[in-house]
């Protein structure tokens, strides 16, 4: 608990830095490109098109809403993969900075999650017209969206803190995580519906895989007009555990970062 408070205090004391890091990172990412920020929207749009073609035209599978069901889950996973993939390497990437200036290093982890969130929100600009196009059910349940996003934000920060420390001491983790995150995607109900899992395993499946309830919840509230999955509490639990374990480990190891790099 103290570790978490300590990290939050550190970040709050340097909010201007968090803001400036995000601004400059976004500038680097999209500046010097003819289409600039438009890429942040075009990128998920093309991803969407590819899946629509693959599923509807090549495989001729899935129901009429399949592309938009898929996309509502995939967009959130894209955020998780982006932020986590970067956070595994974030301390190594910034090693020169860590050895030159002292500041709350968790701001670097937070920054990767913020940029992922920014891209996710731009992705929603692509998603919402698609919801109309694919005749999704617009309902009051959509108001859950900010709540689910907020929990995913905490989940990704906690996991990012954990991964950043682990990635510093175990460099192979960068490669391993890219591979693992791909497997987890196929093990989670993003490309398929939860119905595909045999009924007797559904309970245990949703208890051990946090992404199961996350993806079901996104699909429910955005496309089906249903409330979030009851198993969403599992995801909340994972988020809280990662946040505590992550900030504990980060807080404990932070004084050694500069030396151990």
């Amino acid at each position: 608990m103290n570790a978490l408070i300590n990290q939050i205090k550190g970040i709050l004391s340097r909010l201007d830095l968090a803001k400036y890091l995000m601004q400059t990172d976004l500038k680097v990412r999209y500046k010097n490109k003819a289409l600039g920020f438009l890429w942040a929207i075009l990128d998920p749009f093309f991803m969407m098109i590819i899946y629509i073609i693959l599923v509807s035209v090549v495989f001729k599978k899935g129901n009429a809403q399949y592309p938009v069901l898929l996309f509502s889950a995939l967009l959130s996973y894209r955020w998780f993969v982006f932020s986590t993939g970067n956070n595994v390497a974030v301390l190594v990437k910034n090693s020169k900075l860590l050895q030159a200036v002292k500041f709350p290093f968790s701001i670097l982890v937070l920054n990767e999650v913020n940029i992922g969130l920014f891209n996710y929100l731009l992705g929603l600009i692509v998603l919402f017209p698609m919801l109309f196009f694919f005749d999704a059910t617009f309902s009051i349940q959509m108001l859950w969206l900010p709540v689910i996003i907020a929990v995913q934000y905490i989940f990704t920060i906690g996991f990012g803190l954990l991964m950043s420390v682990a990635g510093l001491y175990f460099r192979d983790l960068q490669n391993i995580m890219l591979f693992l995150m791909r497997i987890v995607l196929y093990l989670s109900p993003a490309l398929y519906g939860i119905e595909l899992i045999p009924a007797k395993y559904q309970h245990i499946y949703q208890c051990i895989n946090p992404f199961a309830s996350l993806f079901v919840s996104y699909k429910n509230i955005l496309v089906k007009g249903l409330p979030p999955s009851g198993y969403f509490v599992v995801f909340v639990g994972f988020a809280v555990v990662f946040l505590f374990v992550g900030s504990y480990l980060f807080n404990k190891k932070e004084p050694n970062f500069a030396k151990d790099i």
Partner: protein
Amino acid sequence: METNTIIQAKNLGIKYKISRFKRSSIMNLVKNVASRNSLKSNGEFWGLRDLNFEVQKGDILGVLGKNGSGKSTLLKTIAGIYLPDEGEINVKGTVSSMLTLSSGFKEDLSGVENIFLIGVLTGFSEKQIKAKFSEIVEFSELEDFIYQPVKSYSSGMKARLGFSIAISLKKDIMLVDEILGVGDFKFREKSRKKMIELIKSDITVILVSHDSETIREYSNKCIWIHEGELKATGNTENVMEKYLTS
């Protein structure tokens, strides 16, 4: 602790671990398990040990020592980047490590953006940086290049920008590592003048150099470190004499 004391080190020790697992990878793990090495760290050494010294406000402390004697470790400890493994160090006031500012540059960003990035990173507000902005740009002599990405700069230009930022965004304690040799001849003269100005102000400076002439010229106090241990401390002339006759 005297009221004027700004840095005080008591039995300060900084330990480095030499571990084969520092950069662990699967291959190393396999190799180590295969050769039945223990998984624990394989050794440690003290980068600094039993250091006792005091710095008063306004002092120019010269740090003498050969390469690898622990000078940079000492600067990083004063800057708060390394924490003591033994003893303690009390620093009253804010610290700027001029030595490494340019290593924080983001290559894709312009000089202007990097001025703000480094400024915010080292704890200045945007307003404070804006107030010093023209001074930094003017001193760096980068002119229109200031709007170009830093990756297009020569190493001399980067050093000039780093120096200009550090000298304009002042802190209570300035850590200087061989800074007098930055840029071409003209710029070196200019930065030397600026350094003297800084030294004459009430700012505390820690000056590291293996050129004893630089230290003799500017510092009023000296410490001599050899293999992580304090060999001598006191006023510059006394320490210098011991250092040069060693």
